[in-house]
């Protein structure tokens, strides 16, 4: 049972204000992912929870206990590092036993716990080896094993998969998910990889420039991004953005630029109303664009010129020119399209996003 509560957390290094007023409530057994580009403060936040960085201001609580000034060893946490941080001079067994020995567990208890963790992770035949005799994936497992033997209240992960190759990363991601389901320990996971964030997190925290941009379940963030940054950060290929001018005509709200003229769906109209005469950013995900058929209403379509065709098998990515801008559309693999073709795309009106030009917040 452990919930982690972060209140108005700030971190200043000499010149840099790395973490700005972060507030988070992490529930018991929850898997929370902090995601963002490098330098966004996610790792610093994690390190403050771990006790490896001092806290400039704010409070961190684990189960109603303020841990601001506790040394790392007294916080009952375990951390997995990006470079695994296995002790090179110790065997796998000793690596996993180290934390227990430091805490004066008795011999039999240590042996039992290490065996148990080794079996969960499938590394019991590696226990006598030294870290340098292990592959990347095996080292990662040992690092996980070292974290789970102590049955800590909170797991902290600092980009644990980013040193693995692509295939292994997917595999370990699945295993991490299973491991969390099995152990049910509260986990905070830092990554810059949005796919990891979306697949692993019960909730995802998107950070940028030290600020929390949005907190929510993965699909919530994907479908209802709070601002342009979150919209562009999550999803691959990322969301298309276009600057459009809002106008009102015959009771309908229109968004138009040099290459397109779109009638905003009624549910957006109310919110867009106060932007009439101004420019806003329109966002549409590649999969919400399709090649227009006669059934599509003309006010949701626009003409484009195909510039690049990327055939991925399950879908085709079309890089298209819309006026002077470019967009990416993910279309059915059966579509026949060639470079320089003029085609008409239609968009899904329910999946349109609008963002304020200044604040970049969703409208």
């Amino acid at each position: 049972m452990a919930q982690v509560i972060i209140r108005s957390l700030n971190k200043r290094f000499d010149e840099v204000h790395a973490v700005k007023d972060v507030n988070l409530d992490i529930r018991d057994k929850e898997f929370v992912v902090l995601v963002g580009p490098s330098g966004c403060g996610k790792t610093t936040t994690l390190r403050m929870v771990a006790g490896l960085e001092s806290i400039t201001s704010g409070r961190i609580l684990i189960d109603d206990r303020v841990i601001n000034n506790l040394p790392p060893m007294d916080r009952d946490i375990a951390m997995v590092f990006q470079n695994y941080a296995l002790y090179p001079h110790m065997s796998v067994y000793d690596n996993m036993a180290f934390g227990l020995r430091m805490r004066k567990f008795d011999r039999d208890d240590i042996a039992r716990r290490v065996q148990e963790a080794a079996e969960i992770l499938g590394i019991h035949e590696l226990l006598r080896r030294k870290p340098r005799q292990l592959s990347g994936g095996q080292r990662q497992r040992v690092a996980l094993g070292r974290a789970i033997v102590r049955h800590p209240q909170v797991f902290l992960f600092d980009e644990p998969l980013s040193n693995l190759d692509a295939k292994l990363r997917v595999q370990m991601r699945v295993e991490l998910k299973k491991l969390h389901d099995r152990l049910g320990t509260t986990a905070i996971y830092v990554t810059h990889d949005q796919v990891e964030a979306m697949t692993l997190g019960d909730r995802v925290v998107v950070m940028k420039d030290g600020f929390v941009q949005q907190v929510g379940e993965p699909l919530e963030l994907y479908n209802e991004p709070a601002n342009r940054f979150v919209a562009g950060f999550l999803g691959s290929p990322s969301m298309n953005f276009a600057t459009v001018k809002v106008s009102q005509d015959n009771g309908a709200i229109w968004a138009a630029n040099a290459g397109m003229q779109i009638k905003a769906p009624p549910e957006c109209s109310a919110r867009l109303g106060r932007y009439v005469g101004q420019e806003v950013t329109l966002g549409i995900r590649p999969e919400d664009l399709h090649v227009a058929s006669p059934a599509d209403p003309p006010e949701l379509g626009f003409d484009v010129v195909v510039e690049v065709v990327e055939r991925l098998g399950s879908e085709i990515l079309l890089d298209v020119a819309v006026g002077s801008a470019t967009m990416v559309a993910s279309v059915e693999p059966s579509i026949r399209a060639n470079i320089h073709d003029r085609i008409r795309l239609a968009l899904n009106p329910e999946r349109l996003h609008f963002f304020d030009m200044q604040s970049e917040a969703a409208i």
Partner: protein
Amino acid sequence: MIEGASWRRWVFFYIPLTAFIVALLFPFYWMLVTTVRPDGELYRPWNAPNYTPFWTMHPTLEHIKDLLTETLFGTWMFNTMVISIAATAISLFCGLLAGYALSRLKFPFAGSLGTMIFITYLVPQTLLFIPLADIIRNFRLGDSPWALILTYPTFLIPFCTWLMMGYFKSIPKELEECARIDGATRWRAMVYIIFPIAVPGILSAGIFAFTLSWNEFIYALVFLSSPDQKTVPVGVTSELVRGDVFYWGELMAGALLGSIPVAFVYSFFVEHYVASLTGSVKG
């Protein structure tokens, strides 16, 4: 390795390597030949018909015997050994802790303090021995091993500190952070995790410190005066050069025997030593 035709390998690899080895080992060979050469050959003029500078037909152990029986060479060896080991131990202990602190702890002026320590190492001994001699006299340590055991660390500690600082910086700090999360205090993380990993660095600092104190000349010359207190470098040069007479055979025998402990220490730890200079911990 150099790829390509065999002549290239000869020109760029074997011949330079041979030249290098010959140049490096020749002084030792010269020492050995001079040691075993009988006096009659040693003082033969260069234009004598049977002059053979590079080898001898009548090797003798006479000079070694003289050195061991007629001089206090055994005592000098013992003195040098005691002084070197003690000075190395003190310097290594201080250097380890100082190097760790300077590379890992965050405190004001940590960076400039490291540089300042290094600068003290650069102050020449020829400048320092005069004030140090005054201090030695004030503490009445002159002509005793303590004079050297306590002054050698003045240049060995900066040296060890600097070397260990560099080595500690090459050890990922995550190892220590992980240990501290695992339940170790900073002290225990240092002792159980960082020091064992730093063994190659500690060994090379130790070897260097030992060699420097073994070969040290000027402090030993100034601070020690009785023959039975002297170290090998000073003893050999002061007792075997009398006026303008050089006892070449005994001198070279002393140099040869005096370099054996250092050579032994080097060869014993050479693998660790090379490892510490060429690379460190891989993740």
